[in-house]
């Protein structure tokens, strides 16, 4: 970590956060092991409601990073990263990223006390599931090109109504409250729509990664509540993306490290040609390359979280998180593929967990637009 003069910034290796890491790891090992993940991933909701409420009640994970004023613990992004790393490692299927990372960050960034007071306490307690989408022209996350896919217009009796399609919304089928960035006459505007709003149709989609769900939402004259100022969603979205990509990077590091560890253990165990396969230089170097990638991604993700926490007064969270997003996306994809390779035939089976990480790696890499978007995003953040 850089030598900032802020002393309140948490260190991921501090005793406190190591204890948090252990608590989350133990909890997930007990409540969401591979067998449980496999059961949930073929279920309809895509997450286990009991595990979700235990996460809130026993560990307070949903409230960890949220502001104290609204029922949170203000523990900071480094602490959040620790939690997300463990969730990524266990492939936890849960609406944590959508509700706690995306929606809550947007609510805080929008600076709308009324909306924050209405939604954040529920998000912090795990009793409200929220999500956020900024659907662009193709229904996926708006990456700066083209128009927003959902349009707002004034309703007859005052307020706003929405029309359009949000094609790929994270946890969109199960969320109680959906935050959307829409095109309003004043410009991009953040609004909220309850999951049971009139004119809203939600369709759960088949997904590449069964541990991460998406839905398509169509809105027809659906009433919505403006959050913050009309036309002011641009900077909110930028801030959300900084936090979300840094958070995603932590989750990706957790998954990548799990792949590295599994592959290493297998290379020590598996014997071919009378030797452990890890004794062959081809395998040994592959694992060393995997380690180097994971370490690099880990460094980038930690830096991004620390900068978001204000550890480095000169650090730019936009740059740090854009770097982390690129490095962690590429590391995870590569390490997940090489994990299969080290396992040989067994790594290609459905029963082996390797493919679940492979699916998650691709799904994460493309979540906010993929390589085309994330490379441009970094250049934009550094002003090129």
């Amino acid at each position, binding site marked *: 970590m850089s030598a900032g003069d802020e002393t309140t910034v948490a260190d991921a290796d501090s005793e406190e956060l190591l204890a948090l890491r252990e608590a989350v790891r133990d909890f997930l090992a007990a409540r969401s092991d591979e067998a449980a993940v496999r059961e949930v991933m073929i279920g309809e909701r895509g997450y286990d409601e009991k595990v979700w409420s235990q996460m809130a009640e026993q560990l307070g994970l949903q409230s960890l990073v949220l502001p104290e004023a609204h029922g949170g613990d203000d523990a900071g992004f480094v602490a959040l990263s620790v939690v997300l790393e463990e969730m990524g490692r266990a492939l936890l299927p849960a609406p944590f990223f959508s509700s706690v990372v995306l929606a809550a960050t947007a609510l805080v960034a929008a600076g709308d006390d009324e909306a924050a007071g209405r939604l954040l306490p529920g998000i912090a307690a795990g009793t409200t599931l929220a999500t956020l989408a900024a659907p662009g022209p193709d229904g996926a996350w708006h990456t700066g090109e083209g128009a927003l896919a959902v349009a707002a217009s004034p309703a007859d009796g005052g307020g706003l109504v929405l029309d359009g399609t949000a094609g*790929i919304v994270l946890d969109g089928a199960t969320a109680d409250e959906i935050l959307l960035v829409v095109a309003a006459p004043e410009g991009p505007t953040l609004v909220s729509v309850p999951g049971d709003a009139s004119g809203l149709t939600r369709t759960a989609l088949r*997904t590449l990664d069964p541990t991460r769900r998406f839905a398509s939402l169509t809105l027809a004259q659906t009433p919505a509540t403006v959050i913050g100022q009309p036309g002011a969603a641009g900077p909110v979205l930028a801030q959300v993306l900084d936090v979300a990509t840094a958070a995603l990077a932590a989750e990706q590091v957790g998954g990548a490290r799990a792949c590295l560890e599994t592959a290493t253990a297998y290379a020590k165990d598996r014997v071919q040609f*009378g030797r452990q396969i890890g004794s062959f230089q081809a395998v040994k170097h592959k694992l060393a390359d995997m380690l180097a990638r994971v370490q690099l991604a880990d460094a980038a993700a930690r830096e991004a979280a620390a900068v978001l926490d204000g550890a480095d007064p000169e650090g730019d969270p936009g740059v740090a998180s854009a770097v982390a997003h690129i490095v962690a996306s590429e590391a995870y994809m590569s390490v997940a593929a090489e994990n299969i390779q080290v396992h040989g035939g067994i790594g290609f089976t459905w029963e082996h967990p390797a493919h679940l990480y492979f699916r998650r790696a691709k799904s994460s890499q493309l979540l906010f637009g993929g390589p085309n978007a994330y490379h441009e995003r970094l250049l934009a953040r550094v002003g090129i």
Partner: protein
Amino acid sequence: MPIELDDFITEVRGFLDAHATRRTGGAGDVQWGVGEDRITYFSTEAPEVEAKAVAVAKAWQRTRYENGFGWLTGPTDFGGRGLTTVHELVYDSLEAEYDVPDTGVLAVVGLGMIGPTILAHGQEKIKQRYLPAMYGGDVIACQLFSEPAAGSDLASVETKAVREGDEWVLNGQKVWTSVAHHAQLGLALCRTDPDRPKHRGITAFLVDLSLPGVDIRPLRQMSGGADFNEVFLTDVHVPDDHRLGEVNDGWRVALTTLMNERATVGGETGGPAGRAVSLPFLRELLRANGRLDDPATRRELASLYAGQAAAEYMNRQALRKLRAGVQPGPEASVSKLLYAQNLTRAAHFAADVVGPKLIADTGEWGTFSWTELLLSTPALRILGGTEEIMKNILAERVLGLPKEPGIDTKSPFRELRRSARSSA
């Protein structure tokens, strides 16, 4: 007496026109958004659908065979046509202009690998019995080589074969056996003498899969379907005339299969996956996603295509040099290596272009369908000899570099260290 190429072309055209429909607009034409958008390498169909596809594949192979196109390079004594690989190439390129069923389930393993092995090592009677049936589309054959503890180190197979009079009794477990659930015949490598060095105590047998004691259990792949299987052999009685090659000389037999495997896998071009990574299809993909004018995407496409095209030239040149019956050399490992790398790269390239529509199925044509190919690519780096093994072969057999130290090929098999997962 080989038929002149011009006459052959006329004959092929006549056959194809009579039995198949020519694609409209030629082979390179892509109608984006029309028809099936599935980009399949391994099947993910329900068993009933798959069984139907297998029946269709068999029927098309039978039609080819009955009209003299089922086994162009095979000897006439066993139902072949006695022509050259050039004729085969010509036939393949003409057939590619028509809509015909995918015969991969018969062709890749059975006709591409097991057929040539039977031809090279089988007794006369066995060749008569199986080769016409295989190339005639009646018998699908599979490769019973890999075992839980013997993958890359294939010469460590443990499945036992013990002689009892005119028969051999087989016991053991095979794994990752592609198409076994559709097959009637398997080529099994078995340990016949554990007191000899591992390569010298193996014997190869053709196993009729309908024999008592053969238990085939499909395994689900990460891509969703179940194209490969575990095959348990329990007291399976195989007649001695089904032995290929001499007793304890099965490794030589296996090498024939493996050389053909590398050439077959590397030489694959057809199927939905082949079409999808073709230049016209990728061009339409870029157009549909608004990336046709994006310089970075264009450069990546060009680089991808150059790699693919050069690999194809290499395959063609290798094929041209071959005459029917001549075994492919270790260079075939280059093809196998490149094939896996190129398809993998193409799948990730398409994913980048498609973006988030690859991770959730919005129903848009030609987007989510890429997941099937993407989820199949890891297998290409493993099956038929892993990437690392291909590189070892190239380094050691082509470049003449020394073997990695510490690999024991001399001690009796019995004394070698094997994986903890070994059943012995």
